[in-house]
């Protein structure tokens, strides 16, 4: 048996799944590898490909080895196949097979459902790298540049994780799907990525931070529920991915927090009390809080759409089959089958948003979205603490979940951020107060100037409170290649 903790570097692809003795899959992955490297090389500007970046790489999946920090050139980053250690005697946690031993092979009756789930998850990973491809050129600091690339290489690794599952367990179909993951492209007319939010642009760094906070958090919730899968290899892949995903949450939360902090500090220094004195605040070279609120409204609502329809038979089937659980399924105390349980889902009755009880099995998406909203609200509270601590009178608020939705029960109506139905005229009159306008985008864009001196930060963002791996404030996180 291969050494399950330590990562083997004896094949082209580092792994802890014994690839060296699994010739079929190794060959498949080695065939897929050049396409991946091409995709990567086409994506990231050459100057950065040659730069030395202070990245963490996993050398084993136990606490000692999973975060080794060193300078690496991105194309030389060892993307690998890393699965969390197998839990002994693990049982299927939910659905009609609850309590039976987990599957180590794909159960035939769920083959296509499982493949589709893996492909959807896999499709989001390269998509975000594509969306973020131009950000390197306007990074507000070497610290942020490093964080961007860390997120990018780990999204790349997550793609590998899904491709491994496809190639190992789904034969020729799986290989075809793996190839298609490199063919689709974010924002493409002909072959777009599968989910809407992953075809949106990430035009500036505030968008990037909002994206990593709100959209990657959807990723986190999806991974959490796939980590509960009765198909053990998927569960183990996702559990290890979650440790990496936490860094993406961190980049988002602290990125927005640092932006807010700089804005408040600049207002105080200039003696501006009114957060809505937008022109004056913008003149300070910082992003006014109302604009930050608008960016938040946009990214939050786009991300809510990723949870699908409130009542969904697909989700019910996946849960019932035991291939996708609920958030923290193993900590929930019910029968884990949901045969008789009900759950309140959002609906519109007489022009008002209400909760309506439906069979809990069909409400699995809604429930995950509720868990997401709660999780997302926590960080917003911490952002508000920064504002409060600096003495500015302003509070960021998550908009109502009905606002600006394209999927689910709210998609057919217009809502204001308070969750009231409004007509087109009202909507048009206020939309620029609720969502970022082109002019807002242009202003943010005007602040996006690269800062490449170690320890220095662009005007609109505060330095981090703690360095990566506890490094000092002036640490050179990226040694830029002089083209």
């Amino acid at each position: 048996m291969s050494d399950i903790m330590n990562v083997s570097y004896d094949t082209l692809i580092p792994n802890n799944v014994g690839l060296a003795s699994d010739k079929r899959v190794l060959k498949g992955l080695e065939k897929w590898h050049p396409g991946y490297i091409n995709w990567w090389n086409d994506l990231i500007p050459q100057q950065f490909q040659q730069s030395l970046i202070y990245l963490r790489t996993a050398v084993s999946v136990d606490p000692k080895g999973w975060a080794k920090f060193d300078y690496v050139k991105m194309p030389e980053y060892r993307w690998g196949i890393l699965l969390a250690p197998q839990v002994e005697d693990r049982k299927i946690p939910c659905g009609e097979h609850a309590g039976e031993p987990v599957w180590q092979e794909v159960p035939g009756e769920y083959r296509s459902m499982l493949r589709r789930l893996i492909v959807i998850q896999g499709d989001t990973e390269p998509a975000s790298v594509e969306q973020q491809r131009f950000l390197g050129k306007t990074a507000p600091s070497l610290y942020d540049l490093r964080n961007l690339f860390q997120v990018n290489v780990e999204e790349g690794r997550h793609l590998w994780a899904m491709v491994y599952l496809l190639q190992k367990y789904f034969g020729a179909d799986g290989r075809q799907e793996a190839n298609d993951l490199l063919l689709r492209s974010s924002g493409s007319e002909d072959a777009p990525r599968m989910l809407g939010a992953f075809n949106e642009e990430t035009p500036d760094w505030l968008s990037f931070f909002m994206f990593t906070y709100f959209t990657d958090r959807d990723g986190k919730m999806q991974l959490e529920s796939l980590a509960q899968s009765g198909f053990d290899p998927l569960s183990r892949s996702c559990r290890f991915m979650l440790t990496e995903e936490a860094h993406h949450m961190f980049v988002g939360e602290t990125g927005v927090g640092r932006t807010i902090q700089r804005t408040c500090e600049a207002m105080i220094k200039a003696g501006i009390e009114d957060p809505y004195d937008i022109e004056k605040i913008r003149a300070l070279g910082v992003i006014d809080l109302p604009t930050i609120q608008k960016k938040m409204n946009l990214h939050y609502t786009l991300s809510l759409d990723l949870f699908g329809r409130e009542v969904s038979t697909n989700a019910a089937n996946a849960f019932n089959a035991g291939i996708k659980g609920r958030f923290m399924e193993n900590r929930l105390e019910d029968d884990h089958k949901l045969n008789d349980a009900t759950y309140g889902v959002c609906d519109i009755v007489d022009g008002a948003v209400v909760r309506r009880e439906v069979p809990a099995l069909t409400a699995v998406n809604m429930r995950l979205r509720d868990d997401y909203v709660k999780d997302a609200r926590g960080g917003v509270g911490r952002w508000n603490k920064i504002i409060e601590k600096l003495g500015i009178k302003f509070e960021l608020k998550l908009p109502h979940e009905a606002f600006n939705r394209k999927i689910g029960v709210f998609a057919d109506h217009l809502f204001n951020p308070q969750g009231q139905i409004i007509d087109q005229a009202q909507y048009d009159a206020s939309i620029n107060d609720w969502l970022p306008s082109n002019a807002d985008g242009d202003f943010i864009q005007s602040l996006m100037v690269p800062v490449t001196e170690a320890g220095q930060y662009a005007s609109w963002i505060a330095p981090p409170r703690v360095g990566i791996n506890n490094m000092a404030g002036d640490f050179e996180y990226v040694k830029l290649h002089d083209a």
Partner: protein
Amino acid sequence: MSAPLKQHLIDPEICIRCYSCEAACTVQAISHNDDNVVVDGTKCEFCMACIPVCPTGSIDEWRVVENYYPVEDQLIWLELPQQQDFSNDDEAAVGLDAIDDSIQALLDKAHEGAGGKAIAPQSASKPSINLFNLGNPLTAIVQGNFRLTDKDSNGDVRHIILDLGQTHFPVLEGQSIGIIPPGLDENGKPFLPRLYSVSSPRDGERPNYNNLSLTVKREPDGVCSNYLCDLEKDDEVKITGPFGSTFLLPNDPAAHVMMICTGTGSAPFRGFTMRRQREMPNVKNSLSLYFGARRPQDLPYFGPLNKMPKDFLKTEFAFSRLDGQTKEYVQDKIRTQKASISKLLQQPNTHIFICGLKEMENGVDEALSDVAREIGIDWAILRDEMRQDGRFHIETY
């Protein structure tokens, strides 16, 4: 007052509530409510499994306390409490290397390769720590500064002797001191202390002369190493410390001390060896040294080491740049000496110390793992046992 306790805490102002630490905790000591993620002091065993998974650095907070901060209090904290004042003896007793945050961070980093909380050998002397700090440094006088490497070596390694005058500065073999380079950094702030292991034994470079020695390699752009290497006799140097409460020599004469080092990582081992030589010169076959360098002329203390009786100190030198010979590293020597090492691994009094550049860690770990595997031992398990027993130590930089 009851003995002070060391408590692991999480900084609520930095934490993003991803709960990765909670998932990583092996003893369910970490929990959360809607506000905070907290560590239960009565459950935490300092296994450190939660440290690397934290994306923020908020996890790496420690306080010495009289009574643990209860979970209920921590759950409503908005920020961490300040460290209360304790005497130095108390701090050393609970295994805190140094209270000063930056020094602590440096030591934590140096020890992290051991894979868990460092624990001092059971028979080690109790160290004093933190007697002098940035606000209250000790001024030492340079007694000598000698080049250890040959003229034709590319490396400039120095043996520097500091006179501590009349001041009591108790420092054990394996402990470090801080050196404060003069001048200001580019932000106009005084430089923070840099850590150096002492290379002399506790009673001084010369017995009872109240002095100590350092082994320092000149680094191309190193502010502190260039300052030290350029020192002349009678120059004044500001020092802090002592620091470190785990990388210490066992006093037990029956203990076998296996030392693995590269370059100036030899400093603490010079101290270990000299202490043994002075205290128990007749104990045989209890010290072994695996020492790697580019060439003999680059290896500090090569001459004196070669004169040691082999039954007092077994030495294995690995040279990686010897003309006409294949490159050899310390891990290669470990493999060629597997017969004797595999015996040592099975003895309950064997202590392993590793010191040098961070890069050596993986190679040495793999070599020990290979040696262990041949005798049917899982090195990862043995290493953890030895560490928890105070018998496995890493200090790398």
